[in-house]
């Protein structure tokens, strides 16, 4: 049995004001193996973040089952660590207190706790910033703190929801390298949500491609790039170019599926600009 299994998972939301129902996920089934680095890519609003919050047990799915180590997820799943898009640090705690909090909650003995906190502060490169408050940190450093806070308590599975979307390109590359190094040293299971194809291919063993809303699994793709990977140069490899082309083809056919009435989807990714132009031309045709 894989460590994580999504089985025919569907999710619908009811908009509070309007009463409209929106289907976020439709019959999603896939597994994540232990120690795997699995990326989930898809256009904005395809429900990929919803998958993570379902696995974390923050809400129940409308239908279908989610298993964690053969147990159905019911309620908060404290075996996962969740790195969200915004860092969600507690603003009233210093860096060191933020990282220490999960260990305090888990009653880790003091000596071990302090050693682990110190280790993670240096692993993510936050030495010298221990007593600083989150509001004084740059976005990239908040991210480092958020990652350390999640990994310090050694969760069995790490969920990452577009963790690097809000930081600048150079910081992002540096953080990706840190993440890859940590992953190869600690061999955690990682589920990494992103809408950036390059990021997915750079980091993951396997890429799960989702469709537009309502999100379904479009394809699964193994990434045949050897490890350890050098984030700064991995895109220059011929096998990277090949798999990127393959992944892009899948996206292209996905765009071709577009149904005429689903005009509410607003793609944010540059890769999707041709959808935009098509939508525009459709609009002008109507006039």
């Amino acid at each position, binding site marked *: 049995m894989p460590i994580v299994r999504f089985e025919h998972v569907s999710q619908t939301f009811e908009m509070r004001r309007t009463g409209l129902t929106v289907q976020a996920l439709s019959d999603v089934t896939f597994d994540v193996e232990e120690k795997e680095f699995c990326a989930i890519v898809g256009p904005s609003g395809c429900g990929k973040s919803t998958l993570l919050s379902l696995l974390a047990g923050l809400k129940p799915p409308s239908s279908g089952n989610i298993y964690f180590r053969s147990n159905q997820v019911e309620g908060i799943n*404290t075996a996962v660590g*969740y790195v969200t898009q915004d860092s969600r640090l*507690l603003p009233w705690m210093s860096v060191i207190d933020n990282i220490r909090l999960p260990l305090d909650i888990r009653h880790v003995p003091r000596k071990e706790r302090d050693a682990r906190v110190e280790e993670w502060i240096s692993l993510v490169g936050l030495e010298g*910033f221990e007593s600083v408050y989150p509001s*004084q940190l740059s976005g990239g450093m908040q991210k480092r703190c958020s990652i350390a806070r999640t990994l310090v308590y050694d969760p069995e599975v790490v969920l990452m929801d577009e963790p690097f979307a809000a930081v600048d390109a150079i910081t992002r590359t540096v953080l990706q390298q840190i993440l890859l190094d940590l992953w190869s040293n600690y061999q955690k299971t990682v589920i990494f949500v992103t809408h950036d194809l390059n990021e997915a291919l750079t980091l993951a063993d396997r890429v799960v491609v989702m469709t537009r809303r309502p999100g379904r699994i479009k394809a699964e793709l193994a990434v045949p790039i050897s490890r350890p990977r050098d984030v700064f140069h991995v895109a220059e490899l011929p096998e990277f170019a090949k798999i990127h082309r393959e992944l892009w083809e899948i996206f292209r056919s996905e765009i071709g599926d577009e149904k005429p009435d689903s005009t509410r989807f607003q793609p944010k990714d540059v890769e999707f600009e041709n959808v935009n132009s098509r939508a525009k031309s459709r609009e002008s045709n109507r006039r």
Partner: protein
Amino acid sequence: MTAATDGETILIGRGSSSRGTGIPRRPKTSRSIRAAQIVSVIVILGAWQLADNRVFPNYLISSPSNVVQKLISLLSTATMWRNIGATAEELALGYLLGVVSGVIFGVGLAYWRVAGATFEPLITVINGIPKIALAPLLLIWFGLGLASKVAIASMTVFFVMFYNSYLGVRSMPNDLVEVVKLMGGGRSVVLRKVVLPQISTPLITGLRSAVPFAMIGVIVGEFIAADKGVGYFIRNSSENFDSASVFAGIVILVLMIIVGTGIISLFERWVMPWRTYQDE
């Protein structure tokens, strides 16, 4: 600010946006504006001094020099200090009582949704009453001494604190609660690490703005019926057409409010150092 003595690390990464930095940075007052402020005060005081006995009779408006003289002589009398002491005691007790009851009701009703939904409209209506109009009633209930002033002050403070804590809890960001729950935090951890620090911001805002409100309550009580206190002194002086004493009493009240708010600010810096950093 004095709290930011961690060294040069503070300077790194400034200007980054993050949760909770909703407080705009206060722009530094430029030197010319500061000068204009001082000049305008001097002009007003000068005009007042000149108007005395030329435009208006002294018993109506007094003059700045008279007020200062009066203030100095008053502060050397035991009676005045007895008045200040009485007002300070009423202020402190009324403030504390109002804060404690307001926070308990505010947090309680916010947590207990059914009660909150039931009582919110009622409390809004009661809050619409000018509280001062209830002062004579409270004097009948609690007598002419300390208790009635404490009651009036705590009533005004109660509503300020009630609203701040009620809205503070209701606007709790769910994502931080989720983060702590995922770490394995139970109810008490969520309460201690997220809820209380989160509502401390509106609470402190309430604590600060409640000081002048408490003062209004106390002074009104003393105006209506009292045998000591700064409010009593002001009313007495005005009945004797001693406007210098009236102004001196007002200056004393302002100083007391400044001291009170200063104590609250010190308290704020002590319990919430992270806010002081953001405020800089």
